[in-house]
């Protein structure tokens, strides 16, 4: 009797839980109130966004982690900015500018009436102070590098409180684009720290939020380490919408720190989050689409990613010491054989679950400005790959499926990638399968981030599979990758004796950097892409289609292929009044 009663109770419990669960996940029924469509942005409301980590500093001229970019876009201002949708430079704190005939001098006319969030007027002194702080020897960092031309810093002077003159030390192809990273910091708050030589420590994360002033659409109200940051509307923000409405539309943005991306997606689906800082992972696409069908999320296809995962061998001779495999690793034909051996369509299917397109170089079709469609291609052909390997003396002499040279040194390599990133691990696994058909054996070695980066920086690896982010689509933003002397020339760090083709890329990159004619720059950069594709220091296979999911109640979201995907446009975001969709 007791057993039967327990059975009945358990069954009833399961049925009740199932019913409640089904009700909670069901879409609204026909009896729900009518929904009206509203596209007119309304003022007020708050949104909740999220990111993996919080700030290490509130000083934008010092911080360079991903959050710093979000923080700057919410709270700080620049003379000009790169629009993350059109990739064009547009006026910001400077309402207009004049350029000298030689293209070296820009005269900026500052927007009148702009004040800092504490009410202090913004003047040319703040711009000069910011340039001085960026190149301060005690704190000079990443931003200083981006504001140099031919290794020399830009110079700033002021004609009056509303006019700033910026002079480039040499002709600069990207020109104004460089100033996208010239964040203006308040002289009246930070001058003391700069004079005392403590600018690098100024505006640490324990600074009271009221001390952090800016000219962005929001001001920092509260920071709770490991939990969240709260940004309130900057009532003194200078920008207005086309209809004259003072921006930003939103009263508040809450930035939750959620370390786990799976948890973040669940919170986005539940409506606890409105948007995130990154695009959807390939595995997240289906659940996001389901949420879109229920009306809770919107999923936008942003386009093809301008960045792609690359596979490369360590081309630093010292790293291989006397390893005989380097004699064939260093030959472009060996890397071309790898490129031929991989079926990129299949790779896109297996690694990105079909949401990717084949590519043959680091500049993807997602970079609509600089992509060159005629870049040399290596269509899948295993026989051609084997032929190239044979030409290098690599054949499967012992019948174990792996090619080796005449001395028996096998083409077998360990490939390092980052642990825990699904598409990296799938990518290396797929390469392993595909390259095995050409007789090249690779062993995946996923490592956690710190160990992996250290191995890379110390050139302590054979091959790697990874992706590097870019802050802009212009090749000038990745000069440190292209130049053999660059800090991010990752396939050969500390390259003091570049190969002839690398030296040619160096010369071409410097030439295009100093060329003011954009058409000519493009032609030169096409040549760089050709040389790169012929020599394949890094082999690219596919670039993913980017999808971005956000809460359906949001308006004004213009997701970009660059990060932060949506908050670059934070002042135009709004929420629909409740009852509308």
């Amino acid at each position: 009797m007791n057993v039967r009663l327990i059975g009945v109770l358990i069954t009833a419990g399961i049925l009740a839980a199932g019913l409640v669960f089904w009700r909670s996940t069901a879409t609204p029924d026909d009896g729900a109130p009518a929904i009206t469509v509203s596209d007119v942005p309304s003022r007020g409301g708050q949104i909740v966004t999220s990111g993996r980590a919080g700030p290490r500093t509130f000083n934008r001229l010092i911080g360079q982690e991903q959050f710093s970019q979000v923080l700057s876009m919410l709270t700080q201002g620049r003379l000009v900015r790169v629009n993350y949708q059109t990739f064009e430079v547009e006026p910001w704190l400077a309402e207009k500018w004049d350029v000298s005939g030689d293209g070296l001098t820009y005269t900026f006319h500052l927007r009148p009436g702009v004040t800092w969030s504490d009410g202090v007027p913004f003047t040319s002194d703040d711009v000069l102070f910011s340039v001085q702080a960026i190149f301060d020897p005690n704190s000079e960092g990443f931003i200083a590098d981006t504001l140099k031309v031919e290794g020399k810093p830009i110079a700033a002077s002021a004609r009056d409180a509303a006019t700033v003159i910026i002079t480039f030390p040499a002709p600069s192809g990207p020109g104004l684009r460089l100033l996208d990273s010239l964040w203006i910091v308040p002289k009246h708050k930070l001058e003391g720290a700069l004079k005392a030589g403590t600018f690098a420590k100024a505006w640490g994360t324990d600074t009271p939020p009221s001390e952090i002033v800016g000219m962005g659409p929001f001001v920092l109200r509260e920071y709770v380490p490991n939990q969240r940051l709260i940004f309130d509307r900057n009532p003194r923000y200078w920008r207005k919408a086309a209809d004259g409405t003072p921006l930003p539309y939103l009263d508040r943005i809450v930035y939750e720190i959620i370390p786990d991306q799976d948890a973040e997606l669940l919170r986005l689906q539940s409506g606890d989050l409105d948007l995130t800082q990154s695009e959807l992972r390939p595995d997240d696409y289906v659940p996001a689409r389901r949420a879109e069908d229920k009306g809770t999320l919107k999923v936008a296809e942003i386009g093809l990613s301008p960045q792609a995962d690359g596979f490369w061998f360590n081309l630093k001779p010292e790293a291989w010491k006397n390893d005989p495999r380097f004699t064939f690793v260093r030959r472009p034909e060996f890397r071309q054989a790898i490129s031929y051996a991989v079926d990129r369509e299949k790779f896109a299917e297996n690694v990105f679950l079909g949401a990717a397109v084949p590519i043959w170089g680091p500049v993807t079709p997602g970079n609509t400005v600089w992509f060159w469609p005629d870049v040399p291609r290596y269509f899948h052909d295993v026989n051609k790959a084997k032929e190239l390997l044979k030409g290098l003396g690599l054949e499967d002499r012992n019948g174990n499926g792996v090619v080796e040279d005449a001395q028996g040194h096998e083409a077998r390599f360990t490939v390092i990638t980052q642990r825990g990133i699904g598409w990296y691990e799938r990518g290396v696994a797929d390469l392993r399968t595909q390259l095995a058909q050409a007789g090249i054996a690779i062993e995946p070695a996923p490592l956690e981030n710190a160990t992996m980066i250290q191995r890379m920086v110390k050139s302590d690896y054979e091959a790697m599979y990874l992706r590097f982010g870019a802050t802009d689509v212009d090749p000038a933003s990745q000069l440190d990758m292209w130049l053999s002397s660059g800090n991010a020339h990752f396939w050969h760090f500390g390259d003091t004796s570049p190969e002839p083709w690398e030296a040619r890329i160096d010369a071409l990159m410097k030439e295009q950097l100093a060329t003011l004619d954009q058409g000519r720059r493009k032609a030169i950069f096409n040549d760089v892409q050709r040389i790169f594709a012929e020599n394949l220091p890094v082999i690219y296979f596919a670039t993913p289609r980017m999808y971005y999911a956000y809460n359906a109640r949001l308006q004004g979201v213009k997701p970009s292929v660059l990060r932060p995907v949506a908050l670059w446009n934070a002042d135009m975001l709004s929420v629909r009044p409740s009852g509308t969709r």
Partner: protein
Amino acid sequence: MGRFFVRRLTFALLLVVTVSSSALMLTRLAPGDMTTELGLRARPEEIARTRARFDLNRSPAAQLGGWALRAARFDFGESFLYDRPVGGLIRRAAGNTAVLAVAALAIATLAGIPLGIVTGSRRGALAGAIRTVSLVCLSVPPLLTSLLLLFIASRTGWLPTGGMTSVDAVDAGWSAWTLDVARHLPLPALALALPLGATFERLQAQAMTETIHQPFVVAALARGVTWRRLLIDHAWRASLRSMCAIYGLAIGALLSGSFVVEYVTAWPGLGRLMYEALRARDIYLVAGCAAMGGVFLAFGSLVSDLLLFAADPRVREGQTA
């Protein structure tokens, strides 16, 4: 009793020193350091500045010595990730973890021990069902439990989907804030409590089964003591000895950080802080978290001893002697 506490205190001190020093040395000797967090584009001067600031240019022994001297004055150094003193970060995170651990412990205890008494003292469908659920809870990794609970919370809206407070509590008063924390607590607390409660249930059941076959239980039954009273007053109390030992350790383990649960549910506790510090090789933060973990472990061990002291007269007599 005084000597007992002195011994315990000495043990706690040794534990904290050993654990924190080992954590610092292991972090220092592991491949990679915090400068990898600066990214590939970091300038050599910036890397050098960071290395100097966090004593990475000194030998590991010299660094450990310097840190130990400062730590003796309760200065645990600065965090690279948060750019602020480690002490404050740890205090806040430890408090949050304590709240979570106490809630999880309460759930696990209130569910696990009574269920263990039931399954250890009787047979039948109910005991079988409890055993099965316990085994499931024990087998499912905490990561999966956390994600499953998060999934249910996100689909049903019954509970907040992570975090410790909601934004609305920011402007609220103290009582509203407490209520808000209480709303956020069940999800991570359940994720922690399910495997722990199952462990308690299994251990209690085993101890109970062994105890009810002891001659004194049979004798009590023969004297006419009712089955219920026999279970609670005699068998359960006698079976507590093995439970007390594991209970203290469980407290220590819970308090010293529940990495996965805190990470997935975005609970700003010690486990999550330690995990992030380890990932970034934030050396002084790792050492500080480990020190606090050691304090909690020592506390758990003390609780275990005190429980044993209270539950087992032989221990009391031994102490008195």
